[in-house]
């Protein structure tokens, strides 16, 4: 029947299904022809009845309305498939970064373990040789101090990983009190400087006491991260830490004149597991700036970077005094 109709109207058979209007017109035409078999006063009723049947018929599975419904369903399925594909891509990317992170974390933990293992084995060897007396006391003290530092280093790595977990579950703890940032930063810089090859590397500029309601441990954490990065990427250039008040905000900046950060990488560095330098070249978890940003935002503040490749970088933290920025 379908092929007869298509041949009659010079249409391919499959076009009939996709042209419901043609089918309706054909059906209405037939109904008009049939209506002449009724009495004139009955023809209108018959035509209305026939037209109703025809349209209802198209609303079934092979009808016009169900074609439209089918099209809508196809569209929804396409959207679902696209969404699923995007979710799969996002999951693959997340798994990639997780595996990359685990590899980097493993390396980062093995570094302090290397020092700890060698130190303990050296002292054990000296004890077994009954030769501890040959070790100068200042040397022994230095080594024991290093053992303590390596343990602290591992504690920081583990804490960073815990912070990531807390951030993900919205449980990052911030315990605020009134803190003199001038004293906090000066003390932190003076603690950090002796461990540097050039203690005068870090210069702190401040204009007197500046109180802020904040978590001092977390603010030190942010400062530690910014200074570590400045030392790592600063190529031995002087690092300037500045504290000042600008209106209702406090601004802490850390500036170096090292390798700098490209505009493209500036968009990535605050994200988890992202670094501007390939993982193979520089050690580090890639979490520092992400955690720093979370801490700053937990204080209703902002963190930003200004940098040109090869011309150093300035990281600027702004924190509101007594309320939102």
């Amino acid at each position: 029947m379908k092929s007869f109709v298509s041949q009659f109207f010079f249409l391919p058979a499959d076009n009939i299904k996709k042209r419901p209007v043609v089918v309706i017109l054909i059906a209405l035409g037939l109904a008009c022809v049939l209506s002449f078999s009724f009495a004139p006063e009955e023809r209108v009723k018959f035509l209305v009845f026939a037209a109703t049947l025809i349209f209802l018929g198209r609303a079934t599975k092979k009808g016009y309305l169900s074609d439209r419904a089918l099209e809508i369903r196809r569209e929804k399925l396409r959207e679902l498939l696209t969404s699923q594909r995007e979710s799969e891509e996002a999951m693959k990317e997340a798994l990639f970064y997780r595996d990359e992170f685990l590899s980097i974390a493993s390396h980062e933990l093995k570094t302090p373990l290397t020092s700890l293992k060698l130190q303990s084995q050296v002292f054990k060897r000296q004890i077994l040789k009954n030769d501890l007396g040959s070790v100068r006391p200042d040397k022994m003290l230095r080594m024991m101090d290093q053992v303590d530092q390596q343990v602290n280093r591992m504690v920081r790595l583990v804490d960073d990983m815990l912070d990531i977990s807390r951030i993900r579950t919205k449980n990052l703890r911030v315990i605020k009190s009134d803190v003199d940032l001038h004293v906090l930063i000066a003390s932190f810089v003076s603690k950090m400087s002796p461990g540097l090859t050039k203690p005068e590397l870090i210069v702190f500029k401040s204009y007197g006491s500046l109180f802020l309601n904040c978590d001092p441990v977390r603010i030190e954490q942010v400062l530690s991260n910014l200074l570590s990065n400045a030392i790592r990427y600063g190529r031995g250039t002087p690092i300037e830490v500045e504290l000042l008040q600008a209106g209702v905000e406090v601004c802490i900046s850390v500036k170096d004149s090292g390798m700098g950060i490209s505009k493209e990488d500036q968009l990535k560095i605050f994200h988890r597991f992202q670094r501007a330098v390939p993982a193979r070249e520089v050690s580090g978890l890639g979490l520092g700036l992400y955690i720093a940003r979370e801490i700053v935002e937990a204080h209703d503040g902002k963190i930003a970077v200004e940098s040109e490749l090869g011309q150093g970088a300035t990281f600027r933290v702004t924190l509101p005094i007594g309320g939102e920025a």
Partner: protein
Amino acid sequence: MKNLVFIIDDDDDVREVMCFALEFEGIKTLSFSDAVKATEYLRHLTPSQYPQLIVVDFMMPEMNGIEFIEHLRTHYPKTLARIPLALSTARDDIHKKIPAEVKLLAKPIDLGDFLGTVKGHLETPVNPSLSLSSYQDSPP
């Protein structure tokens, strides 16, 4: 120069403890925080001043351990490339990328493995009672 080992590692603490471990065995050390500085120092040495062994870390900025080895082989094939090398790394997936004659020291480094590697390249037997030399971060 007899019984001299160069240590190249960007981590200050690892560098210091490796030198410390060797100094206890009466072995002189010279350490560098990056491979570029080490190369620059090495190329000014005469063969009699070469160390008996260079222990280089793999993961370092600017030039990693493998790039350092390849650089010596490419630019100094008859001189510096002949100095015995050991590569220290926390990675466990790079053993296929290093030449067969380069000893791999897996971090955390075992002292016995480390001393065994070093002593195998020394010219003279080590006298443990030798006085300790002070740790040096960079060459004089």
